[in-house]
């Protein structure tokens, strides 16, 4: 895809006998039970720095969550350092595993193509699930891990996408150009949810497209925990900040379907390139926050949105306008781009003609079909037993291959696969071979690493500290550098970084 991308997923935990007020402590223990790695380096982090050119005074917190914090019955001393709080480490596959607000969080290594990113996302599921099983063996407590975005009581947690972008695209142009696409991509990227949250009509919505659409209040801001924005403005490029920005999207759902995840990432990457090349938005939405909720809640499947010029048009038409421009620009570019363009067109056709046939590709359709089969079998309808339907919804996202409902669909072959066990197993231990994650993983395997971040590795070497600056190693593919020998020395790595960094 020719763009550095990554996914960060916060997983939900249910631990028998553990109240939400003690979840933070136990989530830390779950993460602690994961694979060992090198400590995270916090020096590069600046969560208050805003892309719009200022520094926020603080980040908003969720009042309901603050209440949970106050009632925490956790015993023992509270964490005093970020390392104690987050038990943050970088793994040999170049990924980051840590604890955040009661959730195990897994950030994939940087990937240059969808094939790698999907395998690494799946690898993250297995790493977190295995950590939970280690925790169970150690503590005797049963633990369930969910890859979803809501607890059905108004608390949400994210699956964030990261895309490296050129800095010279003005942020305002990025927002205007991206919003209509982001708001309407839930047509294929949504993971589906029983009911609604925080909108006053919780019981009247039987089912909606997106897990996350109910949780946005702003267009753009630096916050992520409360009054969440569709576009997060945190300015942490983890690369040369004069040349690059990292677009940190927090509005996506966590996908179980590999196809839906790949389509979400692939289409977004193409739209970003279009914007970098000067393309503008085909339309302007009257109210993007209202529009994403309205599309998500629309059971008639007309998915109409209001434009700022007073017209009302189908969300599918907005997606088609982006697709048309992408086809003009990217046809014949490479194999994966061809896949994205082809499948994007196919999905829009099917959404228009017969959404039912998308159960093999889209999470929201697969889950809805599954629930309808259940209701049919039980001779019930959507108005009955909301708790049971939400519980089945939740079970779709259970990572346990013996219990999770999604895994049955995958085993049956009714969910389309884009990767396989071999690639996933490899991704659990090995970084992508063509990005700077390779250098990070290599350092962890071969050297005495003091700490690591996305843009830097500190190595203890011959009684001194060597800083490896990876911030310039983001342009293009590492594969085009001279091949790194299997027994690479630190000098080899330094030389490779210098060569990679010299490319403009």
């Amino acid at each position, binding site marked *: 895809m020719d763009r550095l991308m990554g996914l960060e997923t*916060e997983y*939900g935990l*249910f631990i028998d006998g553990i*109240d*939400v007020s003690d*979840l933070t402590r136990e989530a830390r223990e779950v993460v602690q039970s994961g694979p060992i790695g090198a400590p995270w380096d916090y020096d590069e982090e600046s969560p208050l720095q805003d892309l719009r050119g200022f520094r926020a005074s603080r980040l908003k917190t*969720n009042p309901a*969550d603050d209440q*949970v914090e106050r009632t925490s019955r956790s015993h023992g001393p509270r964490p005093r350092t970020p390392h104690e709080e987050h038990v943050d480490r970088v793994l040999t596959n170049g990924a980051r595993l840590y604890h*955040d*607000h*009661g959730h195990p969080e897994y950030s994939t290594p940087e990937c240059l193509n*969808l094939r790698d990113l999907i395998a690494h996302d799946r690898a993250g599921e*297995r790493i977190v699930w295995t950590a939970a099983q280690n925790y169970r063996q150690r503590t005797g407590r049963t633990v369930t891990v969910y890859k979803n975005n809501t*607890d*059905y009581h108004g*608390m*949400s*947690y*994210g699956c964030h996408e990261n895309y490296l972008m050129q800095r010279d695209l003005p942020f305002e142009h990025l927002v205007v150009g991206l919003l209509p696409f982001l708001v309407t991509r839930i047509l294929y990227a949504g993971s589906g949810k029983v009911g609604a949250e925080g909108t006053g009509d919780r019981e009247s919505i039987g089912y909606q497209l997106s897990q996350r659409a109910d949780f946005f209040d702003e267009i753009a801001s630096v916050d*992520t*925990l*409360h009054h969440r924005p569709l576009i997060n403005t945190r300015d942490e490029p983890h690369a040369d900040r004069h040349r690059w920005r990292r677009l940190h999207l*927090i509005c996506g759902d966590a996908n179980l379907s590999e196809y839906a995840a790949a389509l979400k990432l692939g289409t977004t990457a193409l739209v970003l390139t279009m914007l970098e090349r000067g393309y503008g938005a085909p339309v302007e939405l009257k109210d993007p926050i209202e529009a994403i909720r309205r599309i998500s809640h629309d059971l008639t499947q007309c998915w109409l949105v209001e434009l700022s010029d007073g017209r009302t048009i189908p969300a599918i038409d907005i997606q088609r306008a982006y697709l048309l421009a992408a086809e003009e620009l990217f046809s014949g570019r490479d*194999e*994966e781009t*061809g*896949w994205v363009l082809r499948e994007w*067109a*196919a999905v829009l*056709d099917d959404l228009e003609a017969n959404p*039912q*046939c*998308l*159960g093999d590709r889209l999470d929201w359709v697969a889950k809805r*079909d599954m629930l*309808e*089969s*259940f209701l049919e*079998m039980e001779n019930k309808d959507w108005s009955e037993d909301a708790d*049971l339907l*939400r*519980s*089945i919804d*939740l*079970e779709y996202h259970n990572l346990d*291959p013996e*219990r999770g*409902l999604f895994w*049955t*669909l*995958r*085993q*049956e*072959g009714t969910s389309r*696969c*884009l*990767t*396989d*066990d071999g690639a996933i197993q490899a991704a659990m231990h090995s970084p992508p071979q063509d990005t700077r994650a390779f250098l990070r993983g290599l350092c962890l395997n071969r050297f005495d690493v003091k700490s690591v971040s996305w843009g830097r590795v500190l190595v203890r070497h011959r009684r001194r500290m060597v800083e490896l600056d990876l911030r310039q190693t983001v342009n293009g593919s590492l594969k085009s550098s001279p091949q790194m020998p299997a027994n690479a020395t630190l000098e080899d790595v330094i030389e490779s970084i210098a060569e990679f960094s010299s490319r403009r």
Partner: protein
Amino acid sequence: MPERKTQPTTDQPWTKPNDGGDESGPRSPEVERPNTRDLLERMKRVDPRQARRYRQRSGE
């Protein structure tokens, strides 16, 4: 951990399928609503109180 059984992917899941047919547009497979015994049995075993008991901290 129990091995996750997955369907083998096609040799080239990202490449354009060469079906020798009309290339004017992609075609959708006919997909039946999942109705297998395994899936329905798993759904019947779901604890109906699980979603009510499931409480999380606010994440990002």
